[in-house]
């Protein structure tokens, strides 16, 4: 087995509410790589992330997920988090009574200190929100920054970013790009870089800031295309997912 494969998904099938949403999904992310996932609404992108993270509602019925060469299907959500998988949610829930600064400190574990939390918050332009309850009353773009702030605190080896740029204005887009690059250690040389990412995007705007190696198109629960992300984006823009559907046949 190739231990450089940080994440290795094989022939995965996932059921939600008794219905099979993902059919046989396979993909591999090597250490240091960033991949992007395209696909129309409802195609199963979020489902794939939830299954990787281990949310019980997303039931794996076939196939395997290996992380750092280890089968993680039997692990709980928090065990997977502690192994090094981080997830920025598309629509995170409000948690009343828990403050953003508390959750950031929790994510930092042993490294937490008031200064450290403040430093990260400054980077994410979230200082004024630290005393807010998690996601309570945050705008769409603020929610995205809050998610990335938490992930930066967690320092996961694999970051699953579910639409990190949707609802973000043009100015903040650059900031989101910076935060993702930091999260993925993009300043490190490719050789020896450990941190990896899998990013879901509809518009591909994020690709103007973050370099990605491979793109996939997910359609009706199947990966129908794999290749250069910008090329895939171009095709979708020009011809829509209908073109991808042809490939699926």
């Amino acid at each position, binding site marked *: 087995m190739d231990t450089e494969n940080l994440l290795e998904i094989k022939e995965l099938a996932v059921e939600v509410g008794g219905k099979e949403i993902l059919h046989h999904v396979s993909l591999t992310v090597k250490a240091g790589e960033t991949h992007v996932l395209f696909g129309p609404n409802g195609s199963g992108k979020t489902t794939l992330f939830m299954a990787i993270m281990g949310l019980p509602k997303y039931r794996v019925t076939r196939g395997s997920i290996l992380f750092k060469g280890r089968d993680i299907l039997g692990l709980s*959500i928090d065990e997977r988090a502690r192994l090094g998988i981080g997830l920025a949610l598309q629509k995170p829930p409000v948690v009343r009574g828990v403050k953003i600064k508390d959750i950031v400190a*929790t994510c930092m574990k042993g490294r937490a200190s008031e200064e450290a939390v403040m430093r990260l918050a400054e980077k994410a332009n979230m200082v004024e929100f630290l005393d807010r309850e998690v996601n309570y009353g945050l705008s769409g773009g603020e929610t995205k920054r809050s998610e990335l702030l938490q992930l930066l605190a967690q320092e996961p080896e694999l970051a699953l970013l579910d639409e990190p740029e949707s609802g973000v204005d043009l100015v903040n887009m650059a900031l989101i790009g910076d935060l993702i690059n930091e999260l993925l250690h993009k300043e490190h040389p490719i050789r020896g870089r450990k941190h990896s990412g899998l990013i879901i995007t509809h518009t591909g705007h994020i690709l103007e800031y973050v370099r990605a190696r491979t793109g996939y198109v997910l359609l009706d629960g199947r990966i129908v295309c794999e290749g250069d992300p910008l090329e895939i984006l171009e095709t979708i823009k020009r011809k829509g997912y209908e073109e991808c559907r042809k490939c699926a046949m």
Partner: protein
Amino acid sequence: MRHVKKPDGFEEMAKAAANKPAAFGEDIDLNQFVHASEELPYEQELALLPEETKRQMLQVGVVPEGGDQRAGTFIQMDHSVVHSLVKQEGVEVMGIGQAVEKYDWLADYLWKAVAVDTDKYTAVVELGQSNGYFIRALPGSKVVYPVQACLYLSKARLAQKVHNIVIAEEDSELHIITGCTSAPRGEPGLHIGVSEFYVKRGARLTFTMIHNWTPEIAVRPRTGIIVEGDGVFISNYVILKPVHSLQMYPVARCTGENAIVRFHSILIATPGSSMDVGSKVLLEARGARGEIVSRAITTGGTITARGYIEGSAPDVKGHLECRGLILGGSGVIYAIPELKGTIPGVDLSHEAAVGKIAEEEIEYLMIRGLTRDEAIAAIVRGFLKAGIEGLPAELNAEVQRAIEASEKTLF
């Protein structure tokens, strides 16, 4: 034992109400209890109290030793004032009997905020042996540290009867922390506490009450508050330990313009505990504001959480927020928020929510690496803390300690 001397007229009203059941809560047979208690010795040095007693007091925020952070202390056991001390100028602390003798005018404050014939519990306080505290901030005095008061039920099967009067004179500022507790002995007992609060023009009074009973004790507080113009009354009520039966429904009247009342409460009902706790705010003058926030958790007990705000003057504003969490299988939370407006232009609102912790929230924190138990604990802690905002730092620390101590038994 001195019987509190009160003006005529009340006795007859009380007699007429002697068998009148309360509007809410289990009807308690007063004949099951002993109504008189022996005189207990006055204690100059609180440090000399039995260790067990001191521990009980600490748990309800009353510091027997080192009361440097307290403006005064009042300790009543059963019906005896065992300690009463003032440490700061501008505040008076004494037994109600002594106060009635000292001040003729105090007669005007007895049974004004609470009607003597409210029910049989108020009646028996008038008719039987009783005691209580008199705490008063003089006009314009800002009492920095809280006055602490402890009402301790010691004698087995006793119906402890208390009548308190608190007056914050014009432009004064007063903080009170009252801890009510009983000997941890497993004997039945009944605590009936009448408390009348008078917040004069421009005064600010915060009242924090922590209850810590045992599963055999029944508790019937009867509280009335009158807030004059520009006055502020803030109540924080915390009960985290088992009780047999608790029913209370304090009523605050904003009688002066721009008066403000806030009730915050935190309730945890363990299996076997039955609680019926409400707060009522009557906004009777222009610009008055009222807020009721309650946080209720059941791990198996029954909680009825009531809230009532009535607006009958122009430009008043009231908000009621009642949230309940059901953590134990057999627990019940019944939330009853009520609003009544009698003229146009009142602004009254409420939100109420009862349920278990959303799985989605637990999972979200687990995604950040918390174990399931850690996630639940973090959510519950946040839930409870939201119930007590706006406390002075000193009292806040006291309540946080109480919550943290109770967490250990919750999970």
